[in-house]
């Protein structure tokens, strides 16, 4: 008697794929600890030295900006390098020969790396708020804000991962993009300290929008600005993932 049925449902496939992707902790946990927790923590401490003189608003910006940096390193950088590895080492081909959709695989990768980067984010949140003497007042909206901050970073990482011609190009582009996102808008530096042009660019910069949303839901006060932040983060994610879906090498002639 055959024990084989048709392909499993999406949720069943997703659980398997997330568990497979989580096995990446075996190679990535060291890099995640270093780049997602330690690097943002050191930069937070360094920037806070000057920010203390500028008042609490600046300190809050350094704090939320460092959290975004952690998300960028943990998700953008790692997803980029993972997808490049999958493309060049035959992993993507393996998955393409299974009865699964590539969107399920992509979602599994995002969830897995978010879960892997979450402890670093939490560590940074606790240690950072203690070091900078920031009183946290988390709002329930944070449950929506954190995924919406992670998704655009994952999307950018995925876009680089599916587009580059070799791993070296991927690594360079990932670092460049991280610094561009961190610099183009009020991410680590308060808006009033930036040139007007950077503040204009910052309106559509997902890192700036993520920092703003995190600041409002972790520290407060919240304003109508958060609706715009979340809308831009959601729209940006959709657009980038649409392009990723088109560009990802998969079964010949199929988009699913």
């Amino acid at each position, binding site marked *: 008697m*055959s*024990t*084989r*049925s*048709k*392909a*499993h449902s999406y949720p069943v*496939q997703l659980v*398997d*794929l997330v*568990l*497979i992707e989580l*096995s*990446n902790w*075996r*190679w990535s946990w060291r890099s995640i600890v270093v780049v997602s927790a330690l690097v943002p923590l050191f930069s937070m401490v360094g920037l806070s030295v000057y920010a203390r003189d500028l008042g609490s608003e600046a300190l809050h910006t350094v704090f939320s900006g460092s959290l975004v940096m952690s998300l960028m390193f943990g998700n953008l950088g790692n997803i980029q390098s993972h997808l490049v*590895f999958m493309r060049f*080492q*035959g*992993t993507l*081909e*393996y*998955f*393409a*020969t*299974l*009865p*699964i*959709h590539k969107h399920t695989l992509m979602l599994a990768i995002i969830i897995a790396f978010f879960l892997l980067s979450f402890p670093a984010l939490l560590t940074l949140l606790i240690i950072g708020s203690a070091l900078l003497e920031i009183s946290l007042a988390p709002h329930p909206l944070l449950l929506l804000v954190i995924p919406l901050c992670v998704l655009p970073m994952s999307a950018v990482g995925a876009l680089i991962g599916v587009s580059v011609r070799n791993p070296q190009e991927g690594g360079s582009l990932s670092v460049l993009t991280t610094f561009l996102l961190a610099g183009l808008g009020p991410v680590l530096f308060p808006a009033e300290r930036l040139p007007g042009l950077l503040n204009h660019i910052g309106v559509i910069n997902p890192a700036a929008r993520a920092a703003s949303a995190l600041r409002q839901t972790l520290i407060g006060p919240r304003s109508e600005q958060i609706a715009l932040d979340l809308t831009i983060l959601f729209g940006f994610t959709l657009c980038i993932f649409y392009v990723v879906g088109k560009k990802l090498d998969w*079964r*010949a*002639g*199929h988009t*699913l």
Partner: protein
Amino acid sequence: MIVYDVQNLVKTYAGAAEPANKGISFQVRQGEIFGILGDNGAGKTTLIKQMVNLLASDSGEILLYGKSIAQDSLYLPSLVGYMPQESHALNQLTVGEALYYSAHLRGMTRRAAIDERNRLLKIWDMEDLRDHTSSRLSGGQRRLLRLAVATAASSKVLVLDEPTNDLDPQKRRLVWENLRRINRDRGTTIIFITHDALEAEKIIERVGILHQGELVVTGAPHILKRNLKNKLRLEIAFEPGRPPTLATDLVPRQLTATRWQLYLGQHQLGDVIAALDIDRLTDMKLSSATLEDLYFHYVDAV
């Protein structure tokens, strides 16, 4: 029943002067063991990748059980198990995990996938490696794991790219025995590429010979061998010194300093043996033409 119907496949890689495949057409029938032979760069892997829908053709079509593999994204993966030539997929999983997830993602229940994992570990002689991380396996062990992964959940068709490369003789024998058993017990259609023509001959039922992107011939080896003019292969070894003298105008090919090989017809055998300098003869082996001989015959004729 026709399993694979490959129709006039053409594929040219970007920047390449010559097509990798030049209008390849053939069929594979249900329950058949079909071997693809060819020299390096003949287009074997290109052909296989098109057959498992990982590579788009410039023109032509591939039907699987009568349905185009391009029609439905999930149609082919639900029927075909594929073993790539090289892959580092699932490198971070243990051997047991890789087998379990492959079986489960191909549609088995969790309980059945566990049983399947245990069965595969046993038949592929990998029980001791169950908890080893794949990345720490040797090249041969990794190849065996890829093969085991391809056979997980008993796909109706197996497409294998060089299943025995890097394997020691004992493991090669295990592979051929298991493939023969899978074919016999489950009626699985098996299509594979190999350079190991001598060993593959033990299980191949039909063969396709690729040369420079063209399918030179397809057919059952025993039928194709009828086309050979000289059906016998004689290998002779002499003490170092002069080359062997033959009674006929046959020209032997020197394999080593002391060993020669020649092909001859049955009617020539008596004369050749009679003319050999028996005192200097150290070894002699007479066999019928092999799949490898068939391969050289067709490739040299092009």
